[in-house]
């Protein structure tokens, strides 16, 4: 039943987060939330959907927790905590804080990065373990073990169930945003699990509601919305990747773009996600590829290269300058860039060479890049480019 899934997704993190705070027991919290969902699946079709489905699930989960604790009898303090949880006021600020605590604990840097992503998907987003396993290309039992190990580490190493304060918050928030970004990329990559991009957006929205005064959180949401707005235009009918400049812009999600631009208009530029979002906004606001404001993009990249001097940024900066100030400007910056993965560097050099008029070299470089492509669709897209510039060379005598 779709409604159960939808209400479950909205309520799951809230129920689990609050039960963890009351009991300190992650497994108990998850089991009770699952039981409540199972009961809804069984009873709602028969008895009708309750007037307040989220509240119904919460009450069932709470009662289940009380039952379990009562049976183990010794845990009176926990029992009292659970019994006192949730009066009828479900929107207490403290309950919101529980979800924030849950996010920060799942993204604790003392856990391995893979474990952080898996735990956030499982416990905050409520994604079933088999789906997570498929996305990570591991067996379900391996993923179950990974998640169980992470939960044990939280308990054994006493990772606190708390949102850090003061100076510590800045560093830890960066880590949380990094996990969401990785999650989004998993959904956005050529061979990724598309549902994860939507999950990342949902989590960024939640985090934005919980931390309205953090510009980087709002910026990350805007960045996700802008990239995700192109999802229907990124592939052609045959499933092949379509490059940005050749995409049918009428197929972009213009409501998502408008929402992102509105967020950016009220959000100051304080960090790398704000800069990336503004670059994405320049692309999204251009009515045609030729109408792209490449000079603004090049400027944002100059700034991004200062705060985040990575090889990927250096590569994209070279591309932007190539479009803003001519291919040679791009080739010069590319020559200066350090540590760029070879395949990507070849692809960029190929594109710049083609536009500088050196079609033979471009075709050769596109084929080299294709050999090092990380996925099959990208490999085919690069080979298509190689054929196109190759064809341009062969056609030239005819055109003369």
């Amino acid at each position, binding site marked *: 039943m779709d409604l159960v899934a939808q209400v479950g997704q909205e309520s799951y993190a809230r129920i689990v987060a609050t039960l963890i705070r009351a009991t300190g027991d992650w497994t108990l919290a998850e089991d009770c939330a699952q039981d409540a969902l199972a009961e809804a699946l069984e009873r709602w079709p028969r008895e009708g959907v309750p007037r307040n489905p989220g509240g119904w699930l919460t009450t069932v989960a709470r009662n289940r927790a009380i039952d379990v604790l009562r049976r183990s009898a010794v845990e009176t303090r926990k029992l009292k905590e659970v019994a006192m949880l949730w009066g009828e006021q479900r929107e207490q600020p403290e309950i919101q804080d529980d979800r924030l605590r849950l996010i920060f604990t799942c993204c*604790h840097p*003392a856990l391995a990065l893979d474990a952080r992503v898996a735990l956030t998907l499982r416990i905050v987003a409520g994604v079933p373990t088999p789906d997570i396993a498929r996305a990570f290309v591991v067996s379900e039992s391996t993923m179950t073990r990974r998640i169980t190990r992470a939960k044990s580490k939280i308990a054994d*190493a*006493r*990772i*606190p169930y*708390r949102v850090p304060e003061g100076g510590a918050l800045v560093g830890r928030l960066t880590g949380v945003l990094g996990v969401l970004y990785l999650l989004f990329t998993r959904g956005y990559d050529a061979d990724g699990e598309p549902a994860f991009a939507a999950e990342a957006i949902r989590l960024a929205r939640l985090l934005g509601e919980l931390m309205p005064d953090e510009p980087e959180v709002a910026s990350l949401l805007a960045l996700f919305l802008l990239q995700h707005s192109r999802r229907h235009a990124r592939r052609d009918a045959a499933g092949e990747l379509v490059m940005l400049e050749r995409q049918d812009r009428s197929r972009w999600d213009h409501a998502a773009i408008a929402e992102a631009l509105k967020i950016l208009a009220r959000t100051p530029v304080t960090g790398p996600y704000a800069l990336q979002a503004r670059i994405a906004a320049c692309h999204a606001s251009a009515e045609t590829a030729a109408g792209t404001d490449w000079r603004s993009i090049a400027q944002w990249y100059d700034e991004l290269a200062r705060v985040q001097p990575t090889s990927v940024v250096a590569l994209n900066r070279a591309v932007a300058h190539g479009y803003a100030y001519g291919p040679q400007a791009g080739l010069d910056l590319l020559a200066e860039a350090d540590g760029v993965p070879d395949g990507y560097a070849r692809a960029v050099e190929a594109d710049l060479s083609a536009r500088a008029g050196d079609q033979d070299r471009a075709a050769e470089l596109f084929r080299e890049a294709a050999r090092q492509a990380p996925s099959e669709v990208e490999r085919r897209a690069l080979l298509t480019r190689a054929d196109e510039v190759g064809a341009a060379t062969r056609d030239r005598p005819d055109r003369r």
Partner: protein
Amino acid sequence: MKYMMFVCDDTEPETDETLVPDVEVWVAEHDASGARVLGNKLAPPSAATTVRVRGGEVLLSDGPFAETKEVIVGFDILEVADLDEAIAVVARHPMAHVGRVELRPYAD
């Protein structure tokens, strides 16, 4: 909650010495706050003896139980509320800067 700090050296220490805190200050501060229960520097692994008893027989071997490039040079026991507090204490220890520190909670 008690944590054991295994203090190790490292092949890639911090090169800027002005960033490395003073160990005496660290000890005094955390003894005073109660975060440090006890601890000490250890003699080098060349002074180590590894002991096993099998079938009632005491078997000794010269050196540490595992030969590694990085060696344990000292230990401390911390009494703190949780992992975040432990990490904050360790981050101010000079060996976290020029070496590395493994934090391991007591099992109970």
